[in-house]
């Protein structure tokens, strides 16, 4: 029988190695797999390249992972957010690298990575600073830049419901990067609000088919990043 349920958060992240590339879901706090990130902090893997839209806020979740000096490079579209102090400080001090990618290009590069497409052309960023050094080409008299698919060693994703096969549904705009990040990693690790019996998710309503998921762990009552930030929490606590 196929059963992708991990026995604990720490077991779920146990093989994340030093130097790994890790995709982390979420747009702001929506969809951020905060409990998995905290497990990665406890686990301690270093020199990570993290692909995530933002850089976290306060001193919890992704910001705490960065503050704990586990991240050597961020690939993201918007490293600034309200209450984001950790990344800017390290960046200004030259202690963390940044690859800035337009949000839609980032999403499409992740999808391409998962879909076996090594490269594609897009009009996004043409004639801007972010296209400098990039190959470009005209199609129908319009200029496009060449962008490459990205893959990761691990993806950490938060979903709503999961079953033992790893089929997933999401909640509202917490869906954001989850479905594409699940497709683009060698090992996809998911925290689910609820794990239901196989067959309890209508096949028409599955957003991530189980084939893209390696491990699921139930986290019934995930923390809200903004609440932790308001309470001035700092991880590890």
């Amino acid at each position, binding site marked *: 029988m196929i059963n992708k349920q991990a026995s604990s958060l720490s077991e779920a992240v146990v093989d994340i190695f030093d130097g790994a590339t890790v995709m982390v879901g979420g747009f702001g706090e929506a969809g951020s797999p905060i409990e998995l990130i905290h497990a990665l902090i406890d686990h301690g893997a270093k020199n990570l390249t993290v692909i995530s839209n933002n850089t976290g806020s306060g001193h919890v979740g992704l910001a705490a992972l960065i503050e704990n000096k586990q991240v050597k490079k961020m690939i993201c579209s918007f490293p600034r957010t309200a209450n984001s102090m950790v990344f800017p400080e390290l960046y200004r001090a030259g202690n963390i690298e940044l690859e800035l990618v337009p949000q*839609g290009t980032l999403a*499409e590069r992740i999808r391409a990575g998962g879909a076996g497409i090594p490269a594609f052309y*897009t009009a996004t960023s043409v*004639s801007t600073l972010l296209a400098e050094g990039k190959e470009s080409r005209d199609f129908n008299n319009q200029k496009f830049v060449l962008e490459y698919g990205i893959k990761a060693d691990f993806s950490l994703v938060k979903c709503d419901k999961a079953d033992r096969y790893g089929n997933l549904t999401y909640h509202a705009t917490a869906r*954001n990067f989850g*479905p594409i990040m699940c497709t683009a990693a060698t090992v996809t690790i998911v925290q689910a609000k609820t794990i239901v019996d196989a067959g309890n998710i209508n096949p028409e309503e599955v957003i991530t088919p189980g084939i893209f998921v390696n491990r699921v762990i139930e986290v019934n009552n995930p923390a809200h990043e903004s609440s932790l930030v308001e309470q001035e929490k700092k991880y590890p606590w």
Partner: protein
Amino acid sequence: MVTTGKKIGWNRAEMAQKVALDIPNGSYVNLGIGIPEMIADFVPKGREVIYQTENGLLGMGKAPNQGDEDKELINAGKKCVTAIPGASYFHHADSFAMIRGGHIDICVLGAMQVSKNGDLANWSTGAKDAIPAVGGAMDLVAGVKKIFVITQHVTKHGAPKILKKCTFPITGKQVVKRIYTDLAIIDVTKNGLFVKELGPNVTLDYVKERTEPKLKQY
């Protein structure tokens, strides 16, 4: 030229209302963060406009009532929103396929600078110590059918924001179709900038003095 006590130009709400009047019934619209968000409050009666937010929602509704907030139902500015009956959620690759594929009719963005040929600068001042952050701005200007800009006509320091050439790094080249400021509504055309409408108690000369490139009249 300012007559004391007499209001010059439009306030922010009036600017937003001007944009709202120019959005046809049935349009699919993406609104940037800040003044653009106010546009949704001024849709004229009888029109229905559908709002997309690039983080994965088509059919964004008004802000939730206090106590009804869902921290995972947010807009691109990371504020809590609601979904209208008839809304849909989708992931980021699908959301930006919608944007990049030219399916959104209008996007209204704020601006740091706009050039006479419609270049937009709204993502970076280019300052050495700034943390660069772009988000979806470059995808939106490259993909949406019509880009409108809504902005104060001049900076806080009184310098023109409508320039011959942007001095900040651009978000996109020749992308802006129309500029709504507190002083005027200006069309960006192949033949230059044309003043479509002047704000209350604003003269053409008054706008010209605060605009670097030449302004023409229809």
